[in-house]
């Protein structure tokens, strides 16, 4: 009975939490979090159709020397994450989740440089160690989805090529390098310097009448 009460509370608090739910989730955490009864805001909604729900990938340009800037040395190779794998078994999903997490906190509305830097530093360090590189330029590139069938595409987005480069946006870009203190990270451009997006769905043109009901 007590077990089911704990499970019921944490499941009911999966997405948004009141103060009371937050307190109860915290009290039950030694039990529900440890045994994973609390999905902890796992997105069981899959998508809300927001830009932050779109696919995002890591692209890392690797360079040999850590102490020299990327512009002053030749590119060794470019690594994309995920590379290969299957969309049926979750191996690619893990990369998308991590890239989406970084993109979420790089977004001006939720900006948190501590989180983005920590992810960039850790991911960059691992890939540089794998490839014996000393420096990387790490980017998170988001692929905007096409709007629903009755909504026309905005100008510049090809209808028949949803993987065209026009759909890709660099959300985050940072230099990561290794020195005697470990991995260092420096973001290339702050989100504050980026103009705010005018439309939530960048690829959408003018919606056909009666096709989309605005939510309050």
């Amino acid at each position, binding site marked *: 009975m007590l077990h089911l009460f704990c499970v*019921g509370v944490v499941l009911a608090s999966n997405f948004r939490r009141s103060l009371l739910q937050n307190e109860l989730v915290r009290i039950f955490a030694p039990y529900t979090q440890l*045994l994973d*009864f609390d999905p902890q805001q796992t997105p069981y909604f899959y998508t809300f159709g927001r830009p932050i729900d779109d696919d995002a990938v890591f692209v890392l340009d690797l360079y040999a020397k850590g102490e020299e800037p990327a512009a002053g040395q030749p590119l060794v190779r470019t690594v994309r994450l995920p590379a290969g794998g299957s969309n049926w078994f979750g191996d690619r999903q893990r990369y998308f989740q991590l890239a989406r997490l970084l993109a979420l906190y790089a977004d001006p509305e939720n900006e948190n440089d501590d*989180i983005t830097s920590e992810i960039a530093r850790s991911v960059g360090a691992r890939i540089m*160690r794998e490839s014996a590189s000393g420096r990387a330029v790490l980017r998170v590139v988001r*692929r905007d989805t*096409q709007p629903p069938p009755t909504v026309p595409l905005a100008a510049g987005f090809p*209808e028949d090529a949803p993987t065209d480069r026009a759909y890709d946006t660099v959300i985050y870009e940072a230099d990561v390098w290794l020195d005697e203190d470990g991995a260092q990270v420096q973001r290339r451009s702050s989100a504050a310097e980026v103009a705010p997006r005018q439309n939530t769905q960048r690829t959408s043109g003018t919606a056909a009448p009666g096709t989309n009901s605005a939510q309050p």
Partner: protein
Amino acid sequence: MTTTSDGYFSDVTAAVGRGWNRFWFTPADPLQAALLRIAIGLLAIVHLVSLSQDLGRWYSREALLSPDAVKKLLAEGGETANYHYSYLGNFTDADIRYVHWAAIAAAAAFTLGLVTPISGALTAAALLAYVHRVPQVAGHLEPVLVFLVLYLVVANSGARLSLDRRLFGRRQQPGGELPSTSIAANVGLRLIQVHLAMFYAMMALTKLYGDAWWDGNAIWYLVARTHSRPVDFSWLRGWGRSGALLINFWTHAIVYYELAFAVLIWNRWARPLMLALGLIVWASLVVATGYLLFGLAMLLASAAFLPREFFAPVRQPQLSSPR
């Protein structure tokens, strides 16, 4: 007045007590739990094998997110409680393969029903280790898989169709008789049922927070994700209004099904319909999202609601087997 209300409350208390005892403590045949154990065990093996790709890159000490980075991200993300314990962060890329194969071996032992309570607990502990090592990339499957394994341990699922029964059964039951019905089997299956119903309610309610599930376009936004979609349905855009209507229907059907499941699955007349519709709904969600193992886990968990007559073809040969 007092006498009337006293009578009412004593009647309610007695009726609730009888219903409660009947629901939880009616002895059940462990066969259903044993069949579920085999299916869920196989699913756990497939899940663990699927983690083998990029194992060190995700879960070792030098992974994409180091143990320190995970802790910092949890703290920065505002998580006040942190009970994410995992042994995986102690292993290097080279060593982690051995503990990974040990986890697969535990899941195989659970599937075969070898020292089931222990192998089940070890399987759950192994699954949890992967979740807690990098909770930021844990998937939809794990919270379902873990509770299924734990409840099947509670359900004494090793009592049938197991190596435990072959190796130790005769010692426990002179004459080699089939294990009788047990309360534990019923409690385990009931826990799966109640937990699953609450899980469906949670999934439906979280969807209702977002516009895309209200305006009927959520499925489009899933199938239009060109990197992560498993099947390309973007040709639906060429169908114009017909495509939009189909997407709307698909989206609404999923939300309505999940909302209805939590309630109607308890109705004996609606239950077969809900279970049959589940096959269609989950098949459609799997092709839209690629969450194959999660969809299978939800369908298998729903099998806890199947009537015992459904398992008669499996039960009969066992009953008639020579003693």
